[in-house]
């Protein structure tokens, strides 16, 4: 032994300390070797927490990069009831500041919970007002809210996103996978006071969603909406639709549905208002479909504009069905048959060219199949193959009965006539871009087919100009430009299968200017009253829209002096 301890007391103290030393040593070895993993995990759990990083949902822009859907930070107020000292006062103050019901706040604060929602998604000013009150036990959580600066403009096209920023309707839903982005995550270090400390590295940053650039032009959309509102209210219509297309590219410049709804408050409107009628609703087009019959007749070389057709003085029998004209006519030229919208004359033209030709050209103009515009819920309409036509079909299909179309199909068809017979696919999204503006995916003009020859197209343009100048579409005449188009007044089918005498669809489809077309427009009004003729109800709206859109486009391209 190195030490000789004579005193038994000192020896006892020495033994005790030695024992403690050995105990601590064993503990240390035990912790390091056997419990280190568990303890490290426990410490990490106490000092760090997992945080999911929300990606920014992509915006939606019009063709001029004006925002149509953006994300705005909002603040949700929550309470921690045990921390609220004077609940009565808190409820009263919140009632005065935010207009919340005192009873509601009291009920929430009296719950035996550590967390109760008081108000969700408040604006910046409301948040600042509440913060200034400095009430104990109330805190805010930041939440992102999808917001739409133009409220109800193009509402059915854009659609909306829900509370969790998931697209629920329109393009928001259709392109949700591009818009929503990918969440990221990080571990945040925090101290004993639960304060966050930015030391831990972000392990996975969020990937923001891509943005959509539409072909819609905010100003054109506004012009179309303004005019639709006028006729929708004036004629107390059940619904109204307008489509404005760029004839050369097929770009949808405006797409309007009435009734509409406020994208910032969709739950306050009936679901009916959310329907994008332009692509989801099909109807019998009536006389506007005569553009197909006329184009077929000219393209097949069976008629010229000056050929005479006897219109039977207003009454003509096809199988067991009697056709009538609004005004009885004797002999009319081919041009006059279209400009005066004679049902009998058009049927006689169709009888001469045959059902197969009518069907072929209807298909060429895109009827019976969807336009593949990319708009959600699009239907293809109804176009029966010739094999299932009845004996009366030749007196119905050529004048727009026994056939169902959408407003977008009509606009695309008349745009084909305006575009030298080239049928362009209508589209509404022109690009998907990332947050730096880099194009991820681009959609461009797409020629689907040559519906009619350029020569026929030219002749049809002149015939349709006559409709506006001397025919049924006089109310679409402009002092500034030459317009072309076709009116339509279709009887709606009643529930019992008969044609209604009180419910009509008034329509006007056309293009402008007639000689060098730039835009095609379809104006469809569902059940207008008391007037219901397409030439009276829809044609004036076409004129106003076409005039203002052309002026706007000219201003856009005008040289700088």
């Amino acid at each position, binding site marked *: 032994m190195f030490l000789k301890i004579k005193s038994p007391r000192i020896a006892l103290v020495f033994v005790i300390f030695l024992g403690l030393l050995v105990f601590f040593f064993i503990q240390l070895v035990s912790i390091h070797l056997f419990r280190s993993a568990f303890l490290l995990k426990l410490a990490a759990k106490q000092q760090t927490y997992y945080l999911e990083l929300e990606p920014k949902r992509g915006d939606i822009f019009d063709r*001029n990069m004006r925002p149509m859907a953006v994300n705005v930070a909002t603040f949700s107020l929550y309470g921690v009831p045990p921390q609220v000292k004077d609940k009565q006062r808190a409820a009263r103050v919140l009632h005065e500041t935010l207009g919340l019901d005192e009873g509601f706040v009291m009920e929430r604060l009296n719950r035996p919970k550590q967390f109760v929602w008081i108000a969700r998604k408040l604006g910046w000013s409301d948040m600042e007002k509440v913060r200034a009150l400095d009430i104990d036990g109330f805190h805010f959580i930041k939440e992102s809210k999808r917001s739409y600066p133009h409220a109800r403009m193009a509402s059915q096209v854009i659609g909306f996103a829900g509370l969790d920023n998931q697209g629920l309707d329109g393009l928001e839903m259709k392109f949700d996978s591009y818009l929503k982005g990918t969440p990221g995550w990080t571990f945040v270090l925090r101290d004993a006071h639960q304060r966050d400390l930015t030391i831990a590295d972000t392990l996975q940053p969020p990937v923001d969603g891509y943005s959509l650039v539409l072909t819609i032009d*905010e100003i054109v959309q506004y012009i179309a909406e303004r005019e639709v509102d006028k006729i929708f209210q004036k004629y107390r219509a059940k619904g109204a639709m307008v489509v404005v297309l760029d004839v050369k590219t097929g770009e949808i410049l405006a797409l309007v549905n009435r009734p509409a709804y406020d994208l910032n408050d969709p739950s306050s409107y009936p679901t009916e208002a959310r329907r994008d009628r332009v692509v989801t609703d099909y109807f019998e087009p009536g006389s506007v479909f005569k553009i197909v019959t006329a184009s077929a007749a000219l393209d097949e070389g069976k008629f010229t504009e000056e050929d005479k057709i006897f219109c039977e003085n207003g009454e003509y029998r096809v199988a067991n069905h009697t056709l009538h004209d609004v005004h009885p006519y004797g002999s009319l030229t081919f041009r006059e048959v279209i400009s005066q919208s004679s049902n009998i004359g058009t049927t006689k033209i169709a009888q001469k060219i045959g059902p197969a030709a009518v069907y072929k050209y209807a298909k060429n103009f895109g009827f019976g199949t969807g336009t593949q515009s990319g708009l959600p819920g699009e239907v293809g309409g109804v176009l029966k193959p010739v094999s299932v036509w009845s004996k009366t079909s030749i007196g119905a299909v050529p004048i727009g009965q026994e056939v169902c179309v959408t407003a977008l199909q009509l606009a695309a068809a008349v745009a084909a006539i305006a575009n030298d017979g080239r049928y362009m696919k209508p589209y509404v999204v022109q690009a998907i871009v990332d947050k730096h503006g880099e194009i991820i995916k681009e959609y461009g003009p797409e020629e689907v087919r040559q519906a009619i020859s350029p020569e026929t197209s030219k002749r049809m343009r002149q015939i349709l100009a006559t409709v506006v100048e001397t025919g049924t579409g006089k109310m679409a005449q402009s002092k500034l430009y030459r317009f072309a188009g076709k009116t339509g007044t279709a009887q709606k089918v009643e529930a019992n299968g008969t044609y209604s005498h009180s419910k009509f669809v008034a329509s006007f489809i056309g293009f402008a200017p007639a000689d060098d077309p730039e835009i095609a427009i379809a104006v469809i009004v569902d059940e207008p009253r008391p007037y219901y003729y397409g030439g009276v109800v829809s044609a004036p709206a076409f004129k106003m829209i076409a005039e203002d859109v052309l002026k706007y486009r000219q*201003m*856009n391209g*005008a040289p*700088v002096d």
Partner: protein
Amino acid sequence: MRTSRCILYTAVVTVLSLFYVFQQTEIVKLGYKITRAENVLESMRDRRTSLEFTLTSLESPLNLDKNLLMNTNNQYEMAQSFKLVKVTPPRAEGMRVAVGTKGGFAPLSFLRRLARQSIFAPSQAEAKTVK
């Protein structure tokens, strides 16, 4: 000699240890500062987004129509191109052009100008040709 070397080593180790502790404390302090600054930055970004949204809403043609034109019983009318004289705006070198106006014509500025003219100076709407 041995004692003084021992003291020196102890002092060096102590200083290094103190420096390490100081460094760690400063890192934590900076961490708090960064967190606070990040919160302020985020708050300002949110504020900017909120203001941009308000601005876009106010600039919306629908809003201009509703609040500026309808209130004065004026009917918005798109001017014809021959009535317009477009002037190149004086622009300082290097000044950036706002997004959406690079093409030359700014439709919303036009609407705002039109609204202003309709309300405040209706008699100055048109210039006349001098023979």
